[in-house]
């Protein structure tokens, strides 16, 4: 099995690893780098549990080859908090009961972050569209939608 070097920035930190050529970004993050905030839910591109932000774009790490991410900047939920200070989305999910089993949460937060980075004041419809590739089997989505809208409001207050 050929191992190839891959170098990228993960949550602001330089990472360099040898991965199997053809290995997914999901595997590289979880098994090589140890960022297990990225979850393997379906590995078919259906559930969104593995969603990460690559160079500002939401992507599914289960269908992305690690080798193709050389030189990219990757963000995951595991790197979102600054020490004990939570990102507004994390705070809103926590306080708004937007998690239940927690398995979809990191991917859901990444999908929401990709939205808010582009569109800081989204409509409810925008939010529903932004998380339409993420499956949550517990909450029924409503608390998640409300949490994302709350995070957007909190952002606008802190910006004002």
């Amino acid at each position: 099995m050929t191992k190839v070097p891959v170098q990228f920035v993960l949550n602001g930190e330089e990472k360099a690893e040898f991965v199997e050529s053809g290995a997914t970004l999901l595997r590289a993050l979880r098994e090589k780098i140890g960022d297990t905030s990225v979850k393997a839910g379906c590995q078919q591109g259906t559930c969104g549990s593995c969603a990460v932000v690559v160079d500002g774009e939401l992507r599914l790490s289960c269908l992305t080859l690690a080798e193709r991410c050389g030189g990219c900047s990757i963000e995951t939920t595991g790197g979102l908090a600054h020490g004990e200070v939570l990102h507004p989305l994390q705070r809103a999910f926590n306080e708004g009961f937007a998690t239940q089993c927690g398995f979809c949460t990191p991917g859901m937060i990444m999908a929401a972050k990709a939205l808010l980075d582009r569109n800081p004041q989204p409509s409810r419809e925008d939010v529903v569209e932004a998380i339409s590739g993420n499956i949550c089997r517990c909450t029924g989505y409503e608390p998640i939608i409300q949490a994302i809208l709350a995070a957007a409001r909190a952002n606008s207050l802190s910006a004002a």
Partner: protein
Amino acid sequence: MGLALKTYPTLTAAGEALAAQATARYIGGGTLVVRDANEGDLRFDTYVSASDPELSAIAVTDGQATIGAGVTMAGIVREPALGFLAPAAKAVGGPAIRNMATVGGNLFAPTPYGDFTVALVALDASLDIEGAAVPVTDFLTGRETIYARALVRAVSFRLPAEGSFRFAKVSRIRPKGLSIVTIAAVVEERSGAITSARIAYGCMADRPIRAPAVERALIGKARTKDGIAAALAVATEGTSPPTDAIASAWYRSEVLPVHLGRLLLSP
């Protein structure tokens, strides 16, 4: 054996590598082929990709659009000159999938996927396969045989007249869900009568198809409830819809005329 990725600077070089190795598969956005690998498809052990920037180019000039096969659905949505196609590109997956899935890949997406290709069929698109111009319907007919390992460089089509393109994807879950039926239409009218019509269906066969009986029945008619009645009466002609977890063949046949009627009559 593990999987390997081999990247070539040009599509031609990638094509040669693909031809030389039966266990290689081309990877575009990865949403089909990596999924297969993850599901344990043992028929291939090598991904072949091309880094040719031409593959992600979009050109719209003189009423003709040419879209590189590597352009993503998100890339289509972002292109102002292709605004009419945005609903078809948005019909594919969620935001993450749209940032990855390509126009070329969508051509190969098996039913119930491949919503964007339904639009290409209605647009009567032509594919650039190794320099040859192949009508999209010919490609689809030979998709699992003569074109199974074809490398598509680009798709091109004449821009439809303003307001003549219509698209609808019907699914059980909003805003995202697998298709029950997808319909794309290019319907041109003059003086209150339909002068030309191209109608394409997704999920009404094992691949996107045209609906020639509907097209014939629309010519010369007004785009009104009465005018399209004859076309709706033959809506299912030539179809052989699948039964899957989303809908039965019976259900698809029952709802097709309803959705076709709504699409044709929408303002």
